[in-house]
Each structure stands twice: as C-alpha cells, then as structure tokens.
C-alpha cells in the first residue's frame, strides 16, 4: 500500500496527536520521527516539544527493535536531563530489550533508592510478567495497587493476569475496581461482561452486556463495541430462555421472562441491522460474515 508523502507539519501534528492519545503505532512513529530528524529545520520546528518527541521515539524504536535509534535518543536525553527519573525508565526499557534479568536488577536497585517511583515499579512488574514469574508478578502488582489504588491500568493488568490463570472470580474483582475508577467507560463494562460469561455467570454477564450498550452513546461511535455487546446479549438471552434457573456465583437476579424474550428479539434485530446489506463498508458491496451471522440468528 502506498504511503502518503510526508510533510514536516503533518508529521509533527500526527506525532503530537499520538502523544496526547497514547497511540502506540510504532512503525508509523519511527517513520515520521526519522523524517522529522532528517529535515533541516526539523528539530527547531519541534521547539519545546523536542524532549517529549525523543521519549516517544525511544519507546517506538524499542517496540520495533531499532535499538541503535533508541540508544541515540536516550543519549541526547541524558545530556539534557542528567538525573531524571523519566530517563531512568527509558534506560531500563533499553536494558529490557537485551536482557530481562539485568533489567530486573536495575529496577530493583532503583527502587531501593526511591520506593515510591511509580513508573519504575510498573516496569518491574512488566518485566516479571515477560519472564512469566507469575506468582511474584501477582504479588508485586497487588502490593502496588494496594498503595496506588487509582491506577486504572494496573487493575486492568491484574484482571488480565488472573484471567490468564483462569482465576475468573479474582479477575472480576479486579475489574470491579476498574469499574469504580472509570464507571462510564463501555470498554471496561464489556470486559466485565465477557469475563463473567467465561466464568459461567450468565445472569451477571447479561446485565453487563446491557450496561455496555447503555454506555455507548450513539450507534456511530461504538459501532464495533456495540456489536460485540449485542452478540453477548443474544448468547445470554438464548441460554437463559432455554434453562431459566442458571446458577449465578454473584447471586445476580436474572432478567425476568417478558423482558428476556423482548431482549432476545431486540438483539436479533440489531444484529441483522448491523449485518444488513445496506450497512456495508466495503467498496465491493459485500458484507463479510453476513450469511453466517444470519444463519446463526436463525433467519
């Protein structure tokens, strides 16, 4: 696919958007970053943002394995900010690219000097996860979250960790903290619903799929998220209508009869609409998966 030609201003604005929204499209960032560096007045045009830009470029370079580029950026940052904790984190990430054991020692050593350094602590936990030292990783993460309760990322990571160990109840508990911290975010509600479904707590899952739908403002915004939630609703309602008294570990009251049937019908409707031939996005007019979905829906 031909890539659009870059101009300095478009590259700079794309890079700053990526910084603000925490996009990690590392290939693009490195491409645009190198382009900016190669321009004659690239660095000047960055102005005060140059250090943020270098940090962004370092992380992107490490992501795609361009270690020399990362080294170069870190060297420049070190010259400007000699004893900075932020540069310490970047240096640690650079060590991670080579040797996880060394990186672990580096982080432990840094934490001895300052045990409340959040960024370093999180990198430590990340390294433990990469090394599959699950027990220690869970312990560290739990201690971390005990101290820094409002770290949403941490709770999500813990939920993921528990789910990977099939400890779904604990995963739900971690997600419940995430829900408290970001109650209006449909993605977390969806994750809660899916974890509940995997843990076989169908009544709970149904309520959270519905909650996800409620949190999505308009059909345009969350088209894909909405679709997953409607699939979930359809699955749960069909389970519940076949076996009305499903056990629920969280003792959730299941949705009652008339509403249940109405919800199943509604879900079928919305999914058919989503996959209808008028809702396509591809230029050749075909809606991928339409036949299979309609067959599954029983139409």
């Amino acid at each position: 696919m031909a890539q659009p030609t870059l101009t300095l201003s478009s590259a700079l604005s794309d890079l700053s958007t990526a910084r603000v929204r925490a996009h990690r499209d590392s290939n693009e960032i490195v491409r645009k970053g190198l382009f900016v560096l190669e321009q004659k007045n690239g660095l000047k045009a960055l102005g005060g943002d140059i250090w943020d830009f270098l940090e962004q470029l370092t992380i992107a370079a490490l992501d795609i394995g361009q270690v020399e580029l990362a080294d170069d950026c870190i060297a420049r940052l070190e010259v400007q900010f000699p004893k900075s904790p932020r540069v310490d984190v970047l240096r640690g990430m650079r060590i991670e690219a080579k040797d996880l054991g060394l990186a672990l020692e580096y982080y432990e050593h840094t934490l001895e000097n300052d045990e409340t350094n959040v960024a370093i602590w999180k990198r430590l936990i990340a390294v433990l996860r990469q090394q599959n030292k699950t027990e220690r990783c869970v312990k560290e993460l739990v201690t971390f979250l005990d101290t820094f309760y409002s770290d949403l990322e941490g709770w999500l990571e813990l939920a993921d960790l528990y789910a990977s160990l099939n400890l779904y109840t604990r995963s739900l508990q971690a997600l419940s903290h995430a829900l408290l911290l970001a109650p209006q975010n449909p993605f977390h509600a969806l994750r809660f619903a899916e974890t509940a479904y995997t843990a076989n707590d169908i009544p709970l899952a149904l309520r959270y799929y519905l909650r996800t739908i409620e949190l999505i403002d308009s059909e345009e915004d969350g088209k894909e998220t909405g679709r997953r939630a409607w699939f979930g609703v359809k699955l749960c309602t069909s389970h519940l209508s076949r076996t009305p008294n499903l056990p629920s570990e969280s003792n959730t009251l299941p949705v009652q009869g008339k509403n249940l049937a109405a919800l199943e019908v509604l879900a079928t409707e919305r999914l058919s609409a989503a996959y209808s031939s008028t809702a396509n996005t591809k230029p050749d007019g075909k809606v991928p998966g339409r036949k299979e979905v309609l067959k599954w829906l029983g139409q």
Partner: protein
Amino acid sequence: MSGDSLYLDPQIRDWVLFPITLVMILVGILRNNVTQLLVSSPKKSTRSATREQRALLRAQILRANAKSSPLPPSYYTAHTDDLIAAFAAGRYLKEDPSRPNEVDEHGNRIAPAPGNMLTDPSMMEGMMGGMKNQAVMMVPQMVIMGWINFFFQGFVLIKLPFPLTLGFKSMMQRGIETPDMDVRWVSSLSWYFLNWFGLNGLYRLLLGDGNAATDQKDLATSPFAGAGAPVMNQPQDYNKLFASESENLQLAQGLYSWIGDDVDSRILRRYGKLPVA
C-alpha cells in the same frame, strides 16, 4: 473644611510615588525568586506513608457512585466490609520504625497521636521551611518601611480618586497629624501599605498563579501582628479520619443501589420495545 485643592509639587510624583511603587514591584519579584531557590524539594515518602494518605481516597471512590453503583451488590458489600474492617484494624496506618503503633484491646493498631512539633524531625523540617518563607517576606518589608519612614516622612503624595470616610484618616495619613485634611490625600507610608495590599493582582499577572511574592497568610502575620505563631497544618489524626470514613461508608451502604438492576427495562425503552414509563 476640606482642602481639596492642594497643589502638589510634580517632583513628588517623580521622585517618591513612582520609586516607591517600582521598588515594591521589584522587591516582590525578588522575593518570589529567592523563595523558589530556598524551597526544599518535596520529601520522598515511603510506600506505607503514601498508602496511608491514599486509603481515604479508596473509600471515597467506592462511596462516590453509591446511588448508581457500577458494582453488583455482592461486590459492593464485600468491598465496603473489607474497607471498614481494615480501617478499624488500623491496617492502613503507616509503619514508623521509630514509633511503633500501639495496639488496643482487640489487637487493632492505633495511630500515634499527632506528635509534639519539636520532637518529630519531619515536622521540624516543615516548620523550618515555613519560617524561612516568612523571614524572606518580612525582611524586605522592614527594610522598605524603614527607608520610607526615613526619607519620605511628613508629606502627602497623591489624591485618591474616590472619597473615603474619616475613619480611614489614621490609615491613609500616617505621620501627618492634621485634624481636617481630606482623607483622600495619602501619605507615603500609607501609599506603601496600599501598594502592599494591592500588588497581589499584578504579581499574579507577571509571575503566574501560585507565586511566592505575596501570600494570603502574610496579610495576617506581618507587619501588623508582628512575630505571631507560625500557622501550620496540624498533622492529620488518622484515627479520627478513618473512623469518620467508616461511618461514611456505612451511610453510603444504606444509599446503595446497583445500576444494573433494571438496565434491561431501560434498554428496551430506549429501543422502543417498552412504553416510556
């Protein structure tokens, strides 16, 4: 009889009015910079201290949405009970090796009473910092007041554009004892005071918010109150804070209701399957 047509030597304006104002502005900026240099970097706290500080936050987050809580009842109750038990048992209190926590009859830890200011080293540092700030504020003021008193005593500087009552005479005409000169005429010392109160806004413009050139606390302490007792934040008494937070949690539990309770009816209504109630 109000003498409202005194003619002032324009040299007074050039050599007294503007210099006083200019000097005060510059000294304010100087104070700001000196304070920034003197302020010590925030102390690194230990994990347990941070944890203690943020424990209340945890309870507040739980309580915040109690009426339409995203958590199902079993989870909400579990969290609340957990937190209340932890507060009661003092599990969140920070561990300080030099002052081990006392234990009450149930084996729960009790926070130490807020210690004596002079003996606790961390509070001592806080006090020193406060006193250093005040010294920086007070010294230039003393100097400028002395300078004005010495050089610019005994004449009026400026006529205020708005009238004032007689009560302000002693404030506005310090150093000039006349029984019936209009209060709108201001002497140099009083001009100094006026500037002192009023330059706050200018500092905020020049130096941005949160500058150290003027401090609200200082209005009370100097120069009127002299060397008053330093105003310090009382160290938090975590016992009481945790106890009151436990009560708040129990109250919130009464208000609790799950948002997932009738989400099905709401969705059906949204898509027109149920009549709007």
